[in-house]
């Protein structure tokens, strides 16, 4: 299909640049007009990161075909700060600390602008309603509500504009609510995340992923994909020159599946092409044949004899078992006036950072393989990639781009290896931007846990013994499981004095989506059980929940820690 002739007004400027017929308004703004303040968070109208005004009406630009915007007047986040001066709403976001990672913030500012345009006197409940279509994963929304209320009052003249000024120096800059230095770049949409970055000659990457939870790859035929015009390269595990393997603790995950796939969504091959559409078409032209292998999806089943083995190095499917032993648990239970047993479980949870994974790689003029991505651990990623691509460490460079939310989910080097290989093979810059669906299916989750708890107590609430066992589904690869099991074990029983403990945490391989690092690293799951259990015990003993904890608490003195 031929390009569409466009004629619209964008941020006060007439725009007639042609558009591809497949484009959404979001693509046109970002890719053709370079207005990257409008972000893509989900591509399905669920998150609001792409909000813009179309003829004065707040719209999600990911849902609007660009053809429908022909003749319209568009306002994007870039239109709000005139001559670089933040408007009242943006200044209020700056003042209250309403931006954290900042990725949702342009959309949030647009939604808040709409709220105050629709009703300049909106109260906080109405503001919440009007922001209900915009997801923020960092802030907990509270500082956003505060910002919109302050802006409303300043605009209405009921609060002086000085309310938006920076706090004074006072006597110290420690303990001072200095406004975030990065907020202006976030509330204006000026900050460029990896998916906003472009380089001349840049190729676009797409990744072929496994539809099978556990299968042997019997063949990969990339010839049709490679023959397509515009395709620069197709890469597979065979392109890895060094030791293929990454992971936060165990390097058990190949850059792309090597002979065997272990979960649905695992990368098998990647294409780099001149444009995204070609890359997608070429990805779909790769032919892979599989032989299904027996799979296991439940960690307790995976621990049984005869269960399918996920990794040959771990025949028992145990990624990590962390034991903690102290005192004599049987003696402790024998001394108890009350013994309470219960089981607890927690679910896998998605990080849901608004910025899907993205990265840009190139080989620089000195032959340094450079990866720009929102990596939470550039130090370790550089170590691992240098082994994978068999280059000296100073010939590998990681640059951490602005991270649009991480929460542990961007600690794993899940895609940077593919970018490096394609950049090395083509000697051109290569960019990969995950779709939301791809991000959810292929990246780590919070470990689900099943916890069996047995606690013995005296009538006054003192704990005589605890037996705690937690079995966690680590999924198909080790990622952070070892560390998560360690932290869960150490922190499991809370900040309480307990003489006799038997603690075991187990991270187990299955053919599920891998589990990895997620804010609290296992502590949340374990302490959910402990804090629920203490309330159950307190009720049985007729004690107040605060009193039982005060009686056994360590009082904030870690030196008293008898166990590790």
């Amino acid at each position, binding site marked *: 299909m031929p390009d569409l002739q466009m004629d619209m007004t964008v941020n006060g400027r007439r725009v007639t640049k042609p558009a591809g017929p497949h484009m959404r308004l979001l693509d046109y703004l970002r890719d053709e007009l370079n207005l990257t303040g409008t972000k893509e968070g989900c591509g399905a109208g669920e998150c609001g990161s792409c909000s813009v005004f179309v003829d004065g009406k707040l719209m999600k630009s990911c849902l609007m075909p660009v053809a429908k915007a022909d003749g319209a007047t568009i306002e994007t986040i870039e239109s709000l700060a005139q001559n670089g001066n933040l408007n009242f709403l943006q200044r209020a976001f700056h003042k209250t600390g309403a931006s954290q990672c900042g990725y949702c913030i342009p959309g949030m500012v647009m939604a808040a602008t709409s709220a105050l345009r629709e009703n300049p006197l909106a109260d906080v409940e109405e503001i919440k309603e009007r922001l209900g279509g915009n997801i923020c994963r960092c802030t907990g929304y509270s*500082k956003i509500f505060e910002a919109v209320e302050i802006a409303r009052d300043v605009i209405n003249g009921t609060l002086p504009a000085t309310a938006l000024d920076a706090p004074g120096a006072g006597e110290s800059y420690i*303990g001072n609510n200095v406004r975030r230095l990065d907020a202006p770049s976030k509330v204006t949409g000026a900050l460029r995340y990896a998916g906003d970055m472009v380089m001349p000659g840049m190729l676009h990457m797409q990744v072929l992923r496994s539809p099978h939870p556990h299968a042997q790859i019997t063949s990969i035929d990339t010839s049709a994909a490679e023959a397509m015009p515009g395709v620069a390269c197709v890469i597979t595990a065979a392109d890895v020159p060094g030791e293929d393997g990454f992971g936060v603790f165990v390097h058990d995950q190949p850059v792309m599946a090597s002979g065997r796939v272990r*979960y649905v969504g695992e990368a098998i091959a990647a294409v780099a092409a001149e444009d995204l559409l070609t890359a997608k078409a070429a990805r779909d032209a790769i032919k892979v044949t599989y032989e299904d292998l027996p799979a296991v999806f439940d960690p307790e089943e995976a621990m049984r004899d005869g269960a399918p083995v996920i990794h040959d190095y771990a025949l028992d499917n145990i990624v990590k078992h962390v034991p*903690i032993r102290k005192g004599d648990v049987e003696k402790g239970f024998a001394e108890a006036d009350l013994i309470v047993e219960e089981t607890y479980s927690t679910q896998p949870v998605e990080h849901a950072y608004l910025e899907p994974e993205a990265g840009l790689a190139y080989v620089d003029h000195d032959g340094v393989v450079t990866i720009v991505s929102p990596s939470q651990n*550039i130090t370790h990623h550089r170590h691992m990639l240098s082994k994978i691509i068999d280059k000296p460490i100073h010939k590998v460079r*990681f640059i951490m781009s602005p991270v649009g939310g991480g929460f542990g989910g961007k600690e794993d080097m899940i895609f940077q290896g593919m970018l490096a290989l394609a950049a090395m093979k083509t000697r051109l810059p290569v960019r990969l931007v995950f779709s939301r669906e791809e991000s959810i299916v292929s990246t780590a989750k919070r470990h689900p846990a099943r916890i069996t708890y047995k606690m013995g107590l005296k009538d006054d609430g003192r704990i005589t013994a605890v037996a705690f066992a937690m079995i966690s589904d680590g999924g198909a690869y080790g990622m952070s499981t070892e560390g998560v099991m360690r932290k869960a074990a*150490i922190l499991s029983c809370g900040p309480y004095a307990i003489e006799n403990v038997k603690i075991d945490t187990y991270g187990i391989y299955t053919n599920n989506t891998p589990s990895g690092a997620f804010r609290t690293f296992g502590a949340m799951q374990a302490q959910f059980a402990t804090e629920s259990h203490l309330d159950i015990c307190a009720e049985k003993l007729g004690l107040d929940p605060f009193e039982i904890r005060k009686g056994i608490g360590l009082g904030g003195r870690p030196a008293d820690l008898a166990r*590790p």
Partner: protein
Amino acid sequence: MSGKVRGRGMAASWYGIARTATIDRAGAWAELDDGGTAKVVTGVTEIGEGILTVLAQIAAEELGIQPEQVTIGDNDTARSPEAAHAGATRQTYMIGNAVALACREARARLVAELAGFWDVSEDTIEAFDGEIWAAGTNLKMTMEEAVDLCKKRGVVPVGSGSFSTDCTGLDPVDGSGSPWQAYVYGCQVAEVEVDTVTGEVQVLGIWAAHDVGRAINPRGVEGQIEGGIVQGLGQALMEDYRLENGHTSTHGFAKYILPTSLDVPQINSIIVEDPDPLSPLGAKGIGEPALVPTAPAIMNAIYDAIGVRITSLPATPEKIRAGLAEKRQRDNVLGDAAE
């Protein structure tokens, strides 16, 4: 019991900060620069938590300038010193202290030159907010003038800092060891309203008290607490990544439900400052621990409201309704037995 019922619950928590059961370390470089500004370079910074601003505050305080005058060069393995990773609630603790040490060294270089120029003892020199002076005298100049003077005397005021923690691994048999040198503690109270007809739970308020060592930026600390609580609320009540034979049915935000502005309770943060005795700044951290007590506090509040103990997260309306039905049955049986 019918209609909407309110209840309150509490939960406590603890957390070890920085890397676990291993020596953690971070490095930074600092330079007092022309115009009385500063450059600070370190390996890893912002993932949204506000660490850039915290580091600028630390540098400003140590050097005697303003946070806005600090330029942070960061996040590049080829251009900045190792600071490891953005996680483990370690950035304020590890990188903050590394930056403080680097700034102290840079400042000491400048102060030595100024002390020579003014002919005063180095320890009388103080600086804040862009000015530097010798206490007990009327000797004073701007930091811009001081840097210029220092350089004209042939010295570039630069410094470097490396900060590490003293920890050990765990014994593989009994787990004994010293996994962290700094701990934080917290406690949250949740107030909920349970609709006994629909099973829906609305969290009305959270009171959250957290020890952070020293709060470098109290508003930033609140932001971390609020964000952590809402993630905890999501895990407590709605979020659920579902898998069936390895295939997910929750592959988008239409199916994977996240907290929105309409789910957010009134959050009341209480910042407790118990300075860390083992580090130059006394600050600890808050990124992860804010989330730990939220879900159990909400579960305990649900129990307080309706007498139903949810032991399997999330506490969906279906589970609440099933729990209520089971409780009614149990109460009826008990009632019958009593008759």
